[in-house]
């Protein structure tokens, strides 16, 4: 039977391609990919979900699983990093340079800044951290439209409902309707990384092989093509 992969929804396109390539290259049956929010997946894993590999968008949930002893020792690895970008809706003419104290509130012109939930969803948490370190959070805190996931925030900007939004660079890359105004300095927020790990209960060689594929050159190439960065080090 194919092994199961639980992955953060934001990795769907990249992982779909990687899985196909992995299967084609190794002759294995392709893994069964399930995408949902990282929190839902993590909880399901804690309830014994039949996943051999977990790819999270969220370090906190991976930490929780690790603390519970659910991941196969030594298999945790960051497979990708991400960048946070400021995007603009179609037809938004303004330009903006991201930097300390930059005039985000002015650029919004009284309208909304689309983000993922700033207390709950990783993209939102990172975004808030970035705005806080740049000193502009307080000026826009009450102008934020929080979506339940980063793709929904992206959609708000793509549809023009919000003129500006903060999403991952990967999302911006995949959505032709939005324009990237700028990239948040990596040091303005905690490092964005996508940890993956083989899960102890369903640990199988093919799952380990797929994780290795993802961290290997071929996997990196695919992830890079979808806008993810490469982690400097693997654990």
């Amino acid at each position, binding site marked *: 039977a194919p092994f199961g992969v639980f992955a953060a929804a934001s990795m769907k396109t990249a992982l779909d391609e990687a899985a196909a390539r992995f299967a084609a290259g190794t002759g294995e049956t392709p893994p069964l990919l399930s995408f949902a929010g990282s929190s839902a997946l993590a909880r399901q894993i804690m309830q014994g979900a039949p996943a051999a590999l977990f790819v999270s968008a969220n370090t906190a949930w991976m930490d929780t699983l690790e603390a519970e002893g659910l991941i196969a020792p030594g298999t945790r690895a960051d497979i990708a990093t991400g960048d946070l970008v400021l995007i603009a809706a179609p037809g938004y003419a303004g330009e903006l340079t991201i930097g300390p104290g930059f005039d985000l509130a002015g650029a919004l012109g009284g309208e*909304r800044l689309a983000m993922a939930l700033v207390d709950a969803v990783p993209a939102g948490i990172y975004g808030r951290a970035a705005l806080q370190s740049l000193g502009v959070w307080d000026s826009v805190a009450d102008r934020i439209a929080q979506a*339940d996931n980063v793709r929904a925030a992206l959609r708000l900007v793509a549809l023009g*409902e919000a003129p500006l939004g903060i999403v991952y660079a990967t999302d911006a890359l995949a959505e032709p309707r939005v324009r990237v105004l700028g990239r948040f300095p990596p040091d303005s927020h905690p490092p964005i990384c996508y940890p993956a790990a083989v899960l102890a209960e369903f640990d199988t060689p093919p799952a380990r092989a797929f994780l290795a594929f993802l961290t290997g050159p071929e996997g990196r190439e695919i992830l890079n093509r979808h806008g993810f960065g490469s982690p400097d080090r693997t654990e």
Partner: protein
Amino acid sequence: MSGWLGPAEWQALALSLKVSFWATVLSLPPGVLVAYALARGRFRGRELLNGLVHLPLILPPVVTGYLLLMTFGRRGPVGGWLEDTFGLVLAFRWTGAVLAASIMAFPLMVRAIRLAIEAVDPKLEQAAATLGASRIQVFATVTLPLIAPGLIAGAVLGFAKAIGEFGATITFVSNIPGQTQTLPSAIYTFLQVPGAEAPALRLVAISVVVALAALAASEVLARRAAKRVAGE
């Protein structure tokens, strides 16, 4: 109690009540109208109307929210027109949350009211007509009072649904504390974070209490109205 809930949660509770209340109140009149048309009307497109009303029940809420966003968003055809014509903005406002909750609660409401209308004896309506009441007057003075128990049941069902609505609301109007952050959004937020189950369940308990209170009240009201209607 105020120590038990933070100010943000109080805000979410108050907003949920406000949104659900208005969603219920505002969708009652069209609900009655549509239910009446479905129960008594013999027009082309009746099946279509019936299907349309049921759509929000059939579709995943996220899709409903997405369709609402496309239609009633500021760039959407209806949303733009509403803003230009009436200055009415739904997107990112609590008014939009009301719209989303209304739409989601609508099929349940219509179902309950339709069943009530189908149970009204047309002979009483005929009697009213022979006494000089026009069709609208008959409806207002005979049909409407007689379906009161059904109306109450439908309204409370709608209210309960509105209290619990999440997917369509957050997709359409996002989560803006004080504006569109209803109880379910707050609950969802807590559920995303490891270890925050306790506050989430606290909010769940609150919405359960609110909705059950509404349900219980409705059973009492409906029974009283049914007695009234039975002419005792």
